């Protein structure tokens, strides 16, 4: 069984925003909603780092725990999705998420929150695969087409990796061994538990 994860390689990300643009374009995400975004640390200072951040599809997702209407579920591939027909837009998931992934479109003229929107790992949602309803609510279902998330496939430097944990940790390991640095995987321990060190990941031991 695949365990779909994201890795953002901070040594490679050049803050080009192609991941965020690809996501916006692929799913026709409305203005004001950013399923994926770039965060730059120490901007302008030598050694600055940029990270592409979206829903990490956590192993023990805090959004699932706090949702008052239990609209979250996990697919067989460990992708965390939600049912927009149930979501009441309360915003609890936004406060619980350590990555700031849940987004809320403005509904109406008075700043009312709409239903939560977030990265779906390009896996759609609880509607018929490739249906009009699925696209309207959740975006395109690339996973059902045998494709990986658009953000990772569009990444110009391949800083953003998506796929099964074993496969992408192996790719990351090849890089770390080749360049001789960057053993720490950003966000890994926070999202998936355990150690954030590449050397501690079972998939990295080849």
């Amino acid at each position, binding site marked *: *069984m*695949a365990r779909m994860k994201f890795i953002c390689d901070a040594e490679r990300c050049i803050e080009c925003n192609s991941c965020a643009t690809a996501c916006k374009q692929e799913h026709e995400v409305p203005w004001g909603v950013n399923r994926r975004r770039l965060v730059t640390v120490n901007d302008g200072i030598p050694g600055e780092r940029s990270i592409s951040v979206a829903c990490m599809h956590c192993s023990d997702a805090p959004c*699932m*725990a706090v*949702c008052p*209407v*239990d*609209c*979250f*579920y996990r*697919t*067989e*591939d460990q992708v965390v*999705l*939600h*049912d927009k*027909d*149930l979501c009441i837009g309360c915003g609890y998931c936004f406060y619980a998420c350590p990555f700031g992934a849940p987004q809320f479109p403005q509904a109406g003229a008075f700043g009312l929150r709409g239903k939560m929107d977030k990265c779906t790992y390009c*896996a*759609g*949602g*609880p*509607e*018929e*695969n*490739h249906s009009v309803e699925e696209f309207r609510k959740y975006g395109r*279902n690339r*996973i*059902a*087409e*045998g*494709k*990986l998330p658009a953000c*990772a*496939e569009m990444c110009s430097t*391949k800083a953003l*990796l*998506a*796929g*099964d944990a074993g*496969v*992408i940790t*192996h*790719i990351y*390991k*090849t*890089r770390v*061994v*080749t360049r001789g640095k960057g053993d720490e995987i950003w966000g890994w321990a926070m999202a998936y538990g355990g150690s954030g060190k590449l050397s501690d990941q079972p998939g990295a031991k*080849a």
Partner: protein
Amino acid sequence: MKALAMLAAAMALAACNEIPQDAPKPYAGKEDTKAYASDMFKGDKAKYESHLAKRADYQNEYIRTGDAKTK
């Protein structure tokens, strides 16, 4: 009097009961169709997984260049 005091104490402490919040909650929404149920894979999960793993390997440019140093 004693019974009244016990009743009052029971009522005062009633709100101190803590409901367990860490129990896994069931999903209340609609059932999702499986990703490998699409026309491309026709329910073949193994084909779906191998296809995605192969696709994920395209992200490893060291395979293309042959420059990888693997221990």
